[in-house]
C-alpha cells in the first residue's frame, strides 16, 4: 500500500468528500423535514373554522392565504373553559404591515406557549412582550428589512395590500420587542396585541373605514368594548396528550358553530408530503453522489490495474494463493473505505457541532448530532461493497490468465 500512498490518499480523500456530501445531504434533508414539521411545536391542536387541515396550517402557521371564516370569541371562550384545556391563545389574521403579515394575539401569552424546532422557546433579540394594548413585536426578518427597533411606531394596513385608504393610520402600535431569528415564518411576522387589533377595527364595517379612532378615548371605553368578537384560529395546549383525539371529535361536532381542530404535526407532515418533490430531489442528489463515489473507486482500480497485476503476479509466482491475493486487496479497500467512512463521520459530526447554532438560527434547521443512521449505514455498506468487489478485479485477472503473461 505504501508504494501507492499518494494515489491511495487521494482516492480516500475523494471517497471521504463524497461521503461527507452524502451524509450532509441526508442530515440536512432529515433536519429540514424535522424543522418543517416543527415550524410550530408545543401546540397540541389548532382550532379554526371548518376547513381542510393543510389550508388551516397554511394560514395559521405559514401565514399564507386567507382564512375563509372566523370563529366567534364566544366559541373560543367556551372551548377554553373545557377542563381538558391547559391553555388557549387566539390569533386574528388578515392585516399586514408593509408586506409583512400581522398576527394579532394575546401578548405575552403567545410567546410563553409557542415553541419551534422541537422545544425551542421564541426568544427576544431586543425588548420583551409587553401586555400594553399598543404593543407590537416584530419578527427578526421583518425588523431587519424595515429597520425597526424597540420603541418605533408602526401602522397596520387592512388586508394584505398597501393601499393608503386601507391603512389603520389612526392608531399607532409601538414596538416593545424584536424577536431573535427562528428560521420559521415567525421571522416574517409582526405580532400585535389582540385588543389593539380590535381597537383599530372599531370604526370598520365590511372592510371599509366608517369612522376613525383618533378621537376615541381608550380609557373611557367599557372593558368589554375591546374584547375581540371573532378570531381566525387558536393554538391550544391540552392537559393530557391522551385527550387529543376525543377532543378533536368533540370540536368537530361543536353544536353552535362549524369549527374543526387539527394536529399541527400531522398537518405539517401532510404538507411535507406535498412538497415531497424536494425530498425526491435530495434523494436523487444523494444517489448521484454515491454513483460518482463508485465511479471514483472503479476508476482508481482500473488505473492501478497494471501495477497491481504485476505485483500480484509476482506474488503468485512465489506461491501466493488466490485467497491470499483476495485478502490483500480486500484488506486494502477496507482500509480505504473505513478510513473514508470514519473521516466523513468525524468531519460531519465536528462540522455539525460548529454549524448547529448558525443553521438553527438562520434556517430553523436543527441538525441531529446522531452518529450514523440505518439509512446511512446501508449507503456506506453499498459503497464499501462496491469498493471491495472492484478491488477484486486485479486479483481475478491474475488468476484468469496464464502466469507467464504477467511476468514477461
Amino acid at each position, binding site marked *: 500500500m505504501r508504494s501507492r500512498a499518494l494515489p491511495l490518499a487521494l482516492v480516500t480523500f475523494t471517497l471521504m468528500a463524497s461521503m461527507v456530501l452524502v451524509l450532509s445531504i441526508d442530515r440536512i434533508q432529515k433536519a429540514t423535514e424535522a424543522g418543517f414539521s416543527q415550524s410550530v411545536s408545543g401546540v397540541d391542536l389548532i382550532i379554526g373554522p371548518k376547513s381542510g387541515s393543510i389550508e388551516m396550517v397554511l394560514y395559521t402557521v405559514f401565514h399564507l392565504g386567507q382564512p375563509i371564516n372566523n370563529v366567534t370569541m364566544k366559541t373560543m371562550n367556551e372551548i377554553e373553559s373545557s377542563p381538558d384545556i391547559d391553555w388557549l391563545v387566539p390569533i386574528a389574521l388578515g392585516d399586514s404591515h408593509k408586506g409583512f403579515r400581522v398576527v394579532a394575539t394575546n401578548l405575552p401569552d403567545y410567546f410563553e406557549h409557542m415553541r419551534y424546532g422541537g422545544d425551542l422557546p421564541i426568544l427576544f433579540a431586543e425588548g420583551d412582550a409587553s401586555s400594553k394594548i399598543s404593543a407590537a413585536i416584530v419578527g427578526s426578518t421583518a425588523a431587519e428589512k424595515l429597520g425597526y427597533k424597540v420603541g418605533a411606531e408602526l401602522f397596520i394596513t387592512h388586508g394584505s395590500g398597501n393601499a393608503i385608504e386601507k391603512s389603520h393610520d389612526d392608531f399607532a402600535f409601538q414596538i416593545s420587542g424584536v424577536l431573535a431569528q427562528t428560521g420559521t415564518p415567525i421571522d416574517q411576522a409582526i405580532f400585535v396585541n389582540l385588543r389593539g387589533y380590535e381597537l383599530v377595527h372599531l370604526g370598520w364595517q365590511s372592510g371599509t373605514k366608517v369612522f376613525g379612532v383618533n378621537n376615541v378615548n381608550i380609557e373611557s371605553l367599557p372593558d368589554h368594548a375591546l374584547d375581540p368578537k371573532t378570531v381566525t384560529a387558536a393554538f391550544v395546549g391540552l392537559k393530557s396528550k391522551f385527550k387529543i383525539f376525543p377532543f378533536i371529535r368533540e370540536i368537530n361536532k361543536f353544536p353552535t358553530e362549524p369549527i374543526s381542530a387539527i394536529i399541527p404535526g400531522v398537518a405539517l407532515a401532510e404538507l411535507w408530503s406535498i412538497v415531497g418533490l424536494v425530498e425526491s430531489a435530495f434523494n436523487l442528489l444523494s444517489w448521484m453522489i454515491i454513483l460518482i463515489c463508485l465511479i471514483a473507486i472503479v476508476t482508481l482500480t482500473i488505473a492501478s490495474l497494471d501495477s497491481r497485476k504485476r505485483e500480484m503476479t509476482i506474488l503468485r509466482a512465489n506461491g501466493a494463493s488466490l485467497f491470499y491475493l483476495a485478502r490483500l486487496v480486500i484488506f486494502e479497500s477496507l482500509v480505504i473505505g473505513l478510513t473514508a467512512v470514519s473521516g466523513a463521520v468525524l468531519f460531519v459530526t465536528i462540522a455539525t457541532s460548529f454549524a448547529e447554532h448558525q443553521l438553527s438560527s438562520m434556517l430553523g434547521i436543527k441538525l441531529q448530532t446522531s452518529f450514523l443512521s440505518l439509512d446511512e449505514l446501508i449507503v456506506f455498506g453499498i459503497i464499501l461493497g462496491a469498493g471491495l468487489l472492484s478491488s477484486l478485479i486485479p486479483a481475478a485477472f491474475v488468476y484468469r490468465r496464464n*502466469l507467464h503473461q504477467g511476468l514477461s
Partner: protein
Amino acid sequence: MILETNRLEYLYSSGQTIRFPDLKIRVGDRVLVTGRSGCGKTTFLNLIAGVLKIQKGEIDLIGNRFSSLRPTSLDQIRADHIGYVFQTLNLIPFLSVLENVRLGIQFSHQRTSKAPEIEPEISRILSALGLPKNILNRQISNLSIGQQQRVACARALLGKPELFLADEPTSSLDPKSTTEFVQELINTFDPSKQAILIVSHDPSMVPFFNTVIELDN
C-alpha cells in the same frame, strides 16, 4: 530424481511448434540450456516452472505430475520446490531487499522450515552472492541491475528449494562479472540437496556446468 520431462511440445499462437528434449535432473546436477534466440529456451523453463501450462507431454517434479495438477496446486508446488530467477527478475520495486528475498519462502511452509532464522540466512546468502551487508533495507529501485540479479537469485535460493531455475541471469553483466556471479551462485547452492538449471546463450558459462543441452529446432 528431482525433475523428469517427457516428450514436451509447445505450440505457439504463431503456429510454430517446438519439441523439447527429454530431461532428467538429479540432486547435485548443474544443467545449462543454451541455444540461439527464439529457440524456446524461456518457454522450456516456464513449462518446467509451471508458469506455462503444458500442452503436450509430461513434467514430473519430485513425484508431482504437472498435467494432473490444478493451477493453484501448481503454484504451491512451485513455491515449495522451485526457486525461479525470471529474465525480467520480477522483484517488487517498492519493497526492500529483505522483503523481496523473504517472498521466496513466504508462501511455503516447507521452505520456511528450512530457514528457521530468516534474517541471518538471507544475510548469509546475500553476502555469499557478493552483496554488501548494509543492503538489506535498501529499496530494490535503488540497486544496480547486477545487484538486483543477485537479490533475485537470493530469493530463489532461500529455503533451499530442490530445483534452482534461472533465465539468462547474467544477461546484463560484463564477462568478468558473469564469471564471478556464476561462481558465487555455484558456491551458494547446496549440491547435496539441490540442482541447478540455467538457461543462457552465453558460451562462457559452459565450463561451470556438468550437463549442457543445446536447443536447436
